[in-house]
């Protein structure tokens, strides 16, 4: 099936290339062309381009994981520069926050929720990832390093994935996570039975699992924390199955997904062979998985949906586009910044999230931007940007650091759908009533906004800019005027009420 997509993609690609006068279209043109073609065929109109404020806040949250400051926002909104959007994108991509935010995202995925909760290890791993992203290491290189890392977590943070990415029955979890996050396929059901709808069989699953056999410590899985990851050539699936209880066990030699066996007599380190196969430009899954994962994170929905369930019976919504992007990504040398730059500069990324007449169809066809929920990290970093560092709260045990505690409290489990709001009453009570980001911080923000000589309208503008990264609409301005004049002249207390309401709004907790 991937080959069929490849051929179809190539045909269409040639057509797109031809239509633009033989010159290769830019990434953004490529994206917009394919999206528009499907919209035309379906008769669904495209949403208008987002205004500058919507764009600025969205792209800042997506790339840096934090809202822009009030000053940056005002400068951006007031700038007449026609290229200000692409300039802002370049500025974001060049900043170290790019790698730090990406590291936050990948740390949540690559460290199993079952791992021993050790903030030091997790932070060291995130710092390692951030450094790799920021020093322009290519995605194939980073994944190669993750899969072939050796030693203990203290010596080498890269090895954290192989240790903490798994529960005590390591071989099965590493098989699941590696295929899910790096290849975009769900093999886990095939651990115990052949998948009812999909081509994956138990042979596929255990063939991949066999690559991880050499780094296991059977019988004493937690031993790996002390001795670190190293390869023992005597260790095979059969040995493991003899010593640990492995559900659905099937003896298979190391076999790459798709059926190609590790050559007989190959005595090297299995996972090195796996890493070479996975990150090769010829690998049919690797680049597509990275493209689809990035698209999913930015658009809240994959070209293949669910994001990690790419198989023949679940085709992409835009097969040619996925193929073309994957090919470009490979040609760029697996350069994540190039992929981001391409998507962020497209009209498709920059259109508004306000719905039109057919909201469901629009979402499926990327006719408008979906609305995403801020992750725990985005929420914390944005609160700090707006309100400054958190105050102490007696109910909060921040022994391991305020950011760590906050993100543990607010984090969604698993690999959450970016568009789904999962928080409950405890989270809202805490947002509304915790002194952490409470009166003191809000009072300081208001004091700053209400600097001498500013009119009431200007103070209100400033609070909207600081919190929602935009100026109020006319009707909001009217609403706020009414509120401020409830008890005569504008009181400092009334500004604080406004700031609180803006911070608690859906708009602040979402990325629209």
């Amino acid at each position, binding site marked *: 099936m991937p080959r069929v997509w490849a051929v179809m993609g190539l045909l269409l690609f040639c057509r797109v290339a031809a239509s633009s006068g033989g010159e290769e279209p830019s990434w953004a043109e490529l994206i917009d062309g394919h999206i528009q073609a499907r919209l035309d065929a379906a008769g669904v109109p495209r949403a208008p381009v987002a205004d500058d404020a919507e764009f600025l806040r969205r792209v800042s949250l997506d790339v840096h994981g934090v809202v822009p400051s009030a000053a940056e926002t005002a400068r951006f909104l007031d700038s007449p520069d026609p290229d200000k959007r692409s300039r802002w994108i370049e500025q974001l991509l060049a900043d170290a926050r790019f790698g730090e935010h990406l590291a936050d995202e990948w740390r949540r995925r690559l460290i199993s*929720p079952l791992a021993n909760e050790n903030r030091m290890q997790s932070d060291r791993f995130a710092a390692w990832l951030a450094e790799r992203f920021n020093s322009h290491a290519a995605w194939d290189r980073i994944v190669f390093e993750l899969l072939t890392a050796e030693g203990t977590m203290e010596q080498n943070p890269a090895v954290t994935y192989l240790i903490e990415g798994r529960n005590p029955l390591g071989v*099965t979890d590493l098989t699941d996570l590696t295929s899910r996050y790096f290849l975009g396929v769900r093999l886990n059901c095939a651990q115990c039975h052949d998948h009812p709808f999909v081509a994956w069989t138990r042979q596929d699953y255990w063939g991949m699992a066999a690559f991880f056999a050499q780094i296991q410590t059977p019988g004493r899985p937690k031993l790996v924390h002390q001795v670190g990851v190293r390869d023992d050539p005597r260790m095979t699936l059969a040995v493991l199955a003899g010593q640990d209880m492995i559900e659905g066990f099937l003896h298979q030699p190391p076999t790459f997904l798709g059926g190609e066996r590790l050559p007989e007599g190959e005595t090297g380190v299995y996972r090195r062979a796996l890493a070479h196969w996975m990150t090769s430009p010829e690998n049919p899954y690797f680049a597509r998985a990275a493209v689809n994962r990035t698209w999913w994170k930015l658009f809240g929905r994959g070209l293949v949906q669910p994001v990690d369930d790419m198989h023949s019976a679940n085709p992409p919504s835009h097969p040619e586009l996925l193929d073309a992007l994957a090919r470009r990504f490979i040609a760029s040398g697996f350069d994540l910044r190039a992929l981001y730059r391409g998507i962020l500069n497209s009209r498709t990324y920059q259109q508004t999230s*306000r*719905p039109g007449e057919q909201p469901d169809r629009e979402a499926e066809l990327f006719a408008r931007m979906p609305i995403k929920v801020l992750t725990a990290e985005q929420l914390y970093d944005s609160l700090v940007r707006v309100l400054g560092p958190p105050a102490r709260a007696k109910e909060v045990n921040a022994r391991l650091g305020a950011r760590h505690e906050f993100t543990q409290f607010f984090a969604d489990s698993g690999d959450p759908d970016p568009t789904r709001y*999962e928080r409950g009453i*405890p989270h809202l*009570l805490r947002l509304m009533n915790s002194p952490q980001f409470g009166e003191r911080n809000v009072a300081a923000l208001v004091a700053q906004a209400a600097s001498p000589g500013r009119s009431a309208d200007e103070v209100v503008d400033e609070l909207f800019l600081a919190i929602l990264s935009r100026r109020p609409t006319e009707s909001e301005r009217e609403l706020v005027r009414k509120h401020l004049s409830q008890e005569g002249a504008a009181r400092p207390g009334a500004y604080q*009420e406004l700031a609180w309401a803006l911070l608690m709004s*859906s708009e602040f907790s979402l990325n629209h």
Partner: protein
Amino acid sequence: MSAASTRRRFLAAAAAGSTLTGWLGRLAAATDDHPPAKSCILLWMSGGPSHLDTFDLKPQAPDHIRGEFRPIDTTVPGIQISEHFPQLARLMQHAAILRSMSTVESDHQLATYHLHTGYQQRAGGVSFPSLGSMVARELGERDVPLPNFVCIGAGPRHATRAGFLGPDFQPLDVTDPARGVDFIEPLTTPNQFLRQYDLLTHLETSFQERYRAEAARAHSATLSRAVRLMTSEQKRAFDLSQEPEAVRDRYGRGAFGQGCLMARRLIEAGVRCVEVLMGDGVAWDTHRDNFPRTRALSAEVDVGMAALIEDLQQRGRLDSTLVVWMGEFGRSPQTTSDGGRNHWAKAWSTVLAGGGIRGGQVVGRTDRDAAEVLDRPISVTDFLGTICTILGIDYTRENRAPGVERPIPIVDTTKEVRLLTELL
């Protein structure tokens, strides 16, 4: 033999056979002489209590297995429990001891998740709802000020969440019963709070009109539920100072006893499931000093749990409230050189009381050393299927999880589910 009991026996025998009759058995339980229970209190014993030193004592076993405690008689002839449960021994007629729990996970986190959700946790996989969230979903009334699921005490948060059921069924956590719900009072005066909340609702409406997003709807709905709780009369259920001192004493003044008291108050206020987490994730994990620690913990459980059962009974709520006592596994028959016991999932005990079950019985049997199940092994799915049935929940009902093709039944029916019909 009465007609009803003949019929029950027939159904019980039939239910053991096939899924169809299993369904008949549940139907019978729901329509026959057992009106379904309406609420559930789960007493969670973090760390895994030793079955040999609580509800499955083995006086005939050799010294190094038998341990230090002696069995005592209960109000039910032939049933003995640990000498450190004198109060519970008086209430045995209301309870059933399940002595043949036999499960597969012996790691704390994995077992805690498995026993709470009925599914095994896989890295990166579906996140499954806990029993409390499922009860809240199935039995909870919508549009009430209190959440339908409350967790009291510090403990394993990863296993008690709503998973794919979403924010409406997320538990409200009360970390310390003496402190009540954290952040339930506004930082400002009530008047100022209402003023700013009023402004907020206008902003919410205006955003929702422009963007019509499901995530915004969910955020606003959760926000208004949180504010409704803050401003409700019923939040007094979280305030233990409303209880007479004598009642507070009767439950024991520790976090567990006070948690049991809060659970009773919450059930009376309409909450469908309350989980009281004992021991901050580790208390019963007695790899060393098993006997002094188990003795102290047992004393706390005895006072709190007995007060709960009796109080529920005196207030006419015991038949409609199922009390479940359980941990994530049992402990090894062999004692270690540090006087401890290690993890043991092959054979262990749980206790059910109230909820209209047929009390005063023991289900299942282990061997001389309480190491293996001899009779009536009870899996996680058997156990949770039975709890659902007692509560009047059809455990075969299927849910849809976002991004998952297959429907997911409340209890994993791809595994065999053998209900404990003798309790129904």
